[in-house]
């Protein structure tokens, strides 16, 4: 059976990556896709609408608009309704409105807000299409403490003043399990059959991370979130760490256990959509260290999640901002500013173009969009622009009528297949406490590969990805095909910024506003894709706007 012109073997290779192919003969001889691929739809985030709008409005800019074009006035326009854009609007609205100079308007290209943190919903369950968890913040991340506090995610503080995640908010045990040698076991680390040597190495790795987590100077920490709070610390050469890959760092430190290597590579692919061999050592270490504090206890911070993933955060922010301040299906094509004010060219849901005049604009889109939308960037692309690259993601949402069989540890929120190129799946109903019956499993596959393989992956369509996901899941859930009633696939063409070596040194320049009336916000300005960063940049940009208006602005950051 061929799907999207690919054989089952190709699909397996795509889903699992080379290391897993040892299992292929068994899979290929096993029950094939007998009853065909379950129905569902393919969603191309950003792409479908953006391409259609661009086709219709090719070359449309503020400069060549007819004189009779519709016009409108606002205080601040936020371009992009992802977490960063919504957080910016939340901050502006939180200042008690913007007075008589006009209100805030968030323009979001898609039909729903959320961007890479958007959620979906079916009769079976709500489920994520992208981001699906945040880590309980330390007290210094005041923005996240405020946001999650508003959402009721905390109960009290610990003896260091850090908020404790509430019992229903923190992920329910079992948090993670992995599939290795024919069965599921608890945790992420494939510990079965670990040798004494490997164990010693794992422990040494833990001690190394603790030492780095304890790297503090009077100004702050070497690794923390948001990264705007990172400080210079003696003995940690951040610039050097940014020049090398994480894989090279592990090698240089003498970490050779395949188990540890797998864990590190998995971490990079899971959080950054990039392999350890392509990810900078600085970003790799940030993953392990930013959420770790020796004085708080070596347990990593609690993970906070919801059935719909970070869609819950999006929903909260959108509610705080208010529906009247958000316009969906609104694509911004051009942003320009001068001393008199700023102007934004928008094509609305019905395809009508209009110009919004305002005091300031916050461009909360990724760099590759900002470069086309912001006139200043378009006319003179800054040198740092090309340093930003992205990793596409494929997300398969499998709607299940019941839970498939499992060999070994049952029921976990996050399930990972050791050796696979995917980063496994999360169970939407786990956090609700539903252990039986229908649920949605969200399977994630970052396209971290380069060149040919990436091109091949990008050519795979819905059926191919569903088949690839099922082929992998079948390893541990032999009857999964009988449980799937629907399978939707989302392709996030520019899912995540890639924290490759050398990117970090450009971040500071990239954050600089292209014009005093045009501020930028997006998680990619931190070089890593994380909710904490999106919120931080949203608040920073909003507070820059507020500061420019004068008056006393108390920072939420």
């Amino acid at each position, binding site marked *: 059976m061929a799907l999207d012109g690919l054989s089952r073997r190709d699909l397996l290779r795509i889903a699992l990556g080379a290391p897993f192919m040892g*299992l292929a003969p068994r899979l290929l*001889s096993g029950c094939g896709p007998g009853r065909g691929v379950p129905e569902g739809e393919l969603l191309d985030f950003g792409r479908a609408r953006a391409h259609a709008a661009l086709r219709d409005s090719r070359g449309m800019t503020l400069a060549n608009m007819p004189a009779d074009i519709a016009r409108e006035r606002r205080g601040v326009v936020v371009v992009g309704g992802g977490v960063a854009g919504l957080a910016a609007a939340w901050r502006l609205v939180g200042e008690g409105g913007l007075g008589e100079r006009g209100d805030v308007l968030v323009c979001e290209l898609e039909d729903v807000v959320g961007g890479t943190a958007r959620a979906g919903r079916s009769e079976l369950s709500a489920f994520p299409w992208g981001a699906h968890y945040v880590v309980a913040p330390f007290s210094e991340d005041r923005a996240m403490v405020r946001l999650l506090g508003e959402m009721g995610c905390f109960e009290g503080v610990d003896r260091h003043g850090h908020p404790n995640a509430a019992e229903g908010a*923190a992920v329910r*045990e079992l948090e993670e399990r992995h599939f290795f040698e024919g069965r599921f076991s608890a945790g992420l680390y494939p510990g079965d059959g670990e040798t004494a040597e490997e164990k010693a190495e794992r422990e040494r790795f833990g001690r190394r991370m603790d030492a780095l987590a304890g790297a503090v100077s009077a100004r702050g920490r070497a690794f923390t979130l948001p990264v705007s709070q990172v400080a210079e610390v003696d003995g940690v050469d951040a610039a050097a760490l940014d020049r090398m890959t994480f894989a090279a760092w592990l090698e240089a430190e003498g970490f050779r256990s395949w188990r540890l290597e797998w864990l590190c590579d998995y971490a990079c692919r899971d959080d950054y959509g990039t392999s350890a061999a392509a990810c900078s050592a600085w970003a790799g270490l940030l993953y392990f260290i930013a959420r770790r504090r020796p004085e708080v206890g070596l347990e990593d911070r609690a993970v906070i999640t919801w059935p719909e993933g970070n869609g819950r955060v999006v929903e909260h922010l959108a509610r705080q901002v208010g529906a009247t301040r958000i316009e969906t299906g609104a694509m911004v094509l051009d942003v320009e500013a001068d001393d008199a004010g700023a102007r934004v060219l928008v094509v609305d849901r019905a395809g009508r173009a209009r110009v919004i005049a305002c005091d300031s604009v916050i461009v909360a889109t990724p760099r590759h969009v900002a470069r086309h939308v912001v006139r200043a960037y378009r006319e003179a692309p800054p040198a740092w622009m090309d340093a930003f690259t992205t990793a596409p993601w494929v997300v398969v949402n499998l709607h299940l009528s019941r839970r498939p069989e499992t060999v070994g540890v*049952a*029921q976990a929120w996050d399930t990972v297949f050791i050796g696979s190129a995917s980063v496994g799946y999360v169970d939407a109903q786990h956090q609700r406490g*539903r252990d*039986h019956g229908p649920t949605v499993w969200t399977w994630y596959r970052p396209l971290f590969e380069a060149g040919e393989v990436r091109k091949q992956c990008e050519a795979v369509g819905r059926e191919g990805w569903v088949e690839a996901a099922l082929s992998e899941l079948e390893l541990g859930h032999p009857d999964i095909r009988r449980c799937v009633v629907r399978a939707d696939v989302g392709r996030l063409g520019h899912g995540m910024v890639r924290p490759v070596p050398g990117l970090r040194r450009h971040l500071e320049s990239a954050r600089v506003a292209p014009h005093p009336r045009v501020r930028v916000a997006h998680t990619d300005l931190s070089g890593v894709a994380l909710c904490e960063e999106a919120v931080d940049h949203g608040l920073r940009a909003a507070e820059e706007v507020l500061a420019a208006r004068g008056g006393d602005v108390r920072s939420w950051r």
Partner: protein
Amino acid sequence: MGDVARDAEGGREVGREVAAAYGPRRVPLLFLNVVIIAVCGLVYELLAATVSSYLLGDSVTQFSLVIGVYLTSMGLGAWISRYINMRVARGFCEVQLLIALIGGTSAPVLFFVFGLTGKVAVVLYLEVTVIGALVGLELPLLMRLLEKDLQFKDLISRVLALDYVGALFASLLFPLVFVPMLGLVRTALLMGFVNAVVGLWATSLLRFELRPSARASLRVRGVILAVALAVGVIKAEALTEMAEERVFRDPIVYAESTPYQRIVVTSAHESFQVYLNGQLQLDASDEYRYHEALVHPAVAALGRPLRRALVLGGGDGLALRELFRYPQVEAVTLVDLDPGMTSLSRRFEPLAALNRRSYEDRRLTVVNEDAFLWVDGEAKDGREAAWDLVVVDFPDPNNYGLGKLYTRHFYQRLRALVAPGGRVVVQSTSPLAVNRSYWTIIATLEAAGFVVHPMQVTVPSFGVWGFGLAGVGDFAAPRELGAPEAGGRFVPEGLRFVDSEVMRGMFVLPRDMARVEVEVNRLDNQILVRRYEAEGERWR
């Protein structure tokens, strides 16, 4: 010896004669045999590999080991075939029947042995070796039977080609038809049956090469075997239960797999036992101790009249029986995950009789839902705190799905549903056998804002068992049995175990069950599941 040799010679003579007359049809039929034999042989191999990866895990290793051992054994069988010089036809038929017997029972035997000992590798590889050797023996024997009918090059090409075709059939049928439609045990039995029938058929195809006495003996055995295997195919469900019986000690009288659990009822000593997922839930001979202790002290501790009661878990209906002893009860809601369990309690006569047909009581409402979600939903809907009494009777926390029903989160939500002066009683595992687990549950109830009185009672089939009697706000452990009523107490009739004095004793915990300081069980740590598992190890 001379006789035998002459017989063989004679057989060959007759064979030639027959070949002339009967040959044209006989040869294709024997070739059909080749195909069937190949199918059965490969299916046994796939069965063994599947069962082993099922029971031993690590499918890659198991598959390749089984295949390797099987192929080697086939080689061994082929080599042995040269030592069979006489009575080739009989040998062929005997081998057929042996394969039918050993192959046909291979999967049931493996599951049986696994149920009995928990180990399976030795028997598995023994089976694979024997079946492999027999299958390896079969083809050379058949080829020698046919050698007189055909030229060698034709013979070898056809036999081998058909053998491989059979293998193709098997590899398609096994995953697409046999496993999904029949399951492993039935597939094995069916293949055995087919082998036996082929063996019988061969006795007729080769009738001129077999001595009458040998033919008769083969046929009798073949028929018995075929019938036995056919019965097996039809009654495979019962076979699975027989295997379980080894695990359950006593004869199984009822078994059912629901989407949620495996329910098994056994019968012994004029009593019966109910197991959920292999864990004893009740023994009819002494459950009254458990259920009287669960319900009546909690009723006696009520700070308000008993009108509305909630039972969480407890699908066996036995807590209901105790509740319905109080005529003042107006409404009872029972929330149990598994419709299989509640319908068993309603319809399975011994259990229905034991719970005194509580399910027929018009005051009862049954909800089949996960109690965690049900309580969450009620608490969210802001239902008024309306329950006078809540009986929490879940299986022990031996997995995370059950562990969530023992968390602070769950108890907090539950607390919001309890009326002022209402009480909650919680089955809390054994304070003796799993002391720390017991106190974890008590401490978790306290952390959720309940005042708790620990209790213990002896139930012979369980051992020393524990409950937590909980209320919102301070209250005293009850001293007199009975539901509070205007002007006194209503004491139900027919109790076999508790009276006021016995009840007072339940609130005294001997030293070996004394309180230990333990952490609270939360959704995000679920320490109880791990603790229970670790403590339980010692007692298994």
